């Protein structure tokens, strides 16, 4: 009798139970993740950047950095100019915490303005990469044969592909803005190494008896891929997503440093501006440190942080790496 009552209670909301299960799994994984110091460090850096970009910048832009009525000082990251300063670039001061760039724009404003865009680019590119990689990897592992051969040779090709030179050539043909760049990076790296990794993982899952068990129940091939293989390679693809964020941000920095991207402002572009104005040449490099150090450090830190998170997740996904 008691079990029957429980039954009703249980079945009132299966969705709620699933939420609970997900929460429990998340807590367990979080425990493992939080034991890896490097992963937690990465997470903190990412959170700091996220707060700076998504919270601090809008607040500052609407309060302290509001354009003054006289129009003497503007903190706009692209069109801003400070008429009160004598010559640009000016070193850090109370008005400009990280100084101004050669065109008189506030470096800190540029830095903060770019942060959400770097996030968007990195995460969008990584999502596309992982989506393509997971689908192609599992499909080619499951079906094998011609499909498998085709996508694996394509992956070899992409791996050998000179990625940055290709983007340089491409930027001469089309206008590459942030969204397009994310699409291109996502598409190209999706067919590359990640496909091979996820395919090999899917090969391991494919021969497990529970796949045969599903087949005996009459499950179709797409059903098996979606319901059995993909959930089992998902942790790995999530891990690779973190590593891909790093790759995307880095590619963006390289391309905007070459001045090949059609974007308003980015960390790479800040260094590009300083470089083309001749401030990162020879002895200037130490003297005008505020022009290249903040964006350079930001790129390094954010890329590193995502990589660190990936390393932390690695320990969740690969029990062998855990320290007992």
């Amino acid at each position: 009798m008691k079990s029957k009552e429980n039954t009703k209670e249980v079945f009132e909301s299966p969705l709620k139970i699933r939420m609970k299960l997900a929460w429990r799994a998340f807590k367990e994984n979080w425990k493992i993740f939080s034991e890896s110091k490097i992963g937690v460090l990465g997470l903190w850096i990412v959170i700091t950047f996220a707060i700076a970009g998504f919270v601090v910048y809008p607040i500052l832009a609407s309060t302290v950095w509001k354009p003054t009525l006289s129009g003497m000082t503007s903190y706009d990251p692209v069109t801003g100019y400070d008429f009160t300063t004598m010559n640009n670039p000016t070193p850090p001061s109370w008005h400009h915490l990280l100084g101004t760039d050669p065109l008189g724009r506030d470096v800190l404003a540029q830095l903060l303005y770019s942060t959400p865009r770097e996030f968007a680019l990195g995460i969008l590119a990584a999502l596309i990469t992982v989506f393509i990689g997971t689908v192609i990897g599992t499909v080619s592992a499951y079906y094998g044969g011609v499909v498998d051969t085709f996508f694996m040779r394509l992956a070899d090709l992409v791996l050998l592909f000179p990625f940055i030179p290709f983007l340089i050539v491409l930027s001469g043909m089309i206008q590459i803005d942030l969204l397009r760049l994310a699409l291109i990076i996502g598409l190209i790296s999706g067919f590359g190494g990640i496909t091979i990794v996820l395919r090999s993982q899917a090969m391991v899952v494919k021969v497990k008896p529970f796949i045969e068990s599903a087949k005996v129940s009459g499950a179709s091939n797409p059903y098996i891929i979606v319901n059995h293989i993909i959930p089992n390679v998902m942790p790995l693809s999530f891990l690779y997503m973190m590593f891909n964020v790093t790759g995307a941000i880095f590619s963006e920095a390289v391309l905007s440093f070459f001045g090949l991207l059609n974007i308003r402002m980015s960390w790479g572009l800040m260094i590009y501006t300083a470089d083309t104005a001749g401030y990162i040449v020879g002895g200037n490099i130490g003297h005008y440190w505020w022009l290249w150090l903040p964006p350079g450090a930001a790129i390094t830190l954010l890329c590193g942080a995502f990589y660190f998170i990936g390393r932390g997740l690695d320990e969740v996904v690969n029990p062998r790496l855990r320290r007992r």
Partner: protein
Amino acid sequence: MPEVETSNATDVVIKVEHLKKYFPVRRGTFARAKQFLHAVDDLNFEVKKGEVIALVGESGCGKTTTGKTLLRLYEPTDGKITFLNRDVTCIHSAQDRKWLHSKSQMIFQDPFESLNPRKTIFDIVSEPMNVQNEGNLKQREKKVMDILNRVGISPPDTFLWRYPHELSGGQRQRVAIARALVMNPEFVVADEPTSMLDVSIRTQVMTLMMELIHEMHMTFIYITHDLAVARYMADYISVMYLGKMVEYGKTEEIIQNPLHPYTKALISAVPVPDPEFKRKSIQIKGGIGKAIDPPKRCRFYERCPFAKDICAKEEPMLIDVGEGHKVACFLYSKN
């Protein structure tokens, strides 16, 4: 109890004629396979409704391949499989496949691998219904609870949202059985379902399966290498050697009166609990032969202590020596 049921139901559930399954052996990268592994070679049998047949043989003799071919996990190389009076050798339409899989199921050997580690028990057990689009969520839940209760997972609601790794081996195999039986299949292939289990749990699971078979009037093919298990479970025993069926008959008939030298050797290898008991044992030479393109002769020829000249020249046919006891050996053929 079982005798009454088997004699009442006489319609054939699955009939296998000249079933062959060859696997190509890869030689070079670009060369086509020239050699074939004869995993299942010319198998003929039929199973009537409510019967339990045990496929017995040493490892590598094609028991599991037979089971999987029957359930169309492998495409048969040749032969004909008739399931419930329908030819299922070549299934092309998705509808036919769904029909076949709604009527037949398989219980796997390893309960640690045959349940998806990322699914809850409810997901696992209800998957066949999910695939076959049977019932709505409420009905499925009810059915899952019922079947879990029947296989001895109780109270079921405490297990419903657990993952396989939270269960013990015996519980997992019970869940695997529940999953196989949730659609009320007519025909079940059990591939050594107890061989991975602890000895103490083995009997429980076997008893459970016996009960379920008789309750649900299922037809069972029980694959095992253990003659004691086969004797406990099955109405008929079929002994396989290198892809061939060498002996077939009623369980007690096979155990008490084995005819084929291989069956004799198998039975003499079963330990007897009485130390005083002396049984004349048959020693066979060597190990199991290669099934890659075997020559046209008795497959047991190299190991057989009673081999005659004719055994090296021809393949013995499965002949009836009376009362449905069939044996493939020249020692019993009437010339």
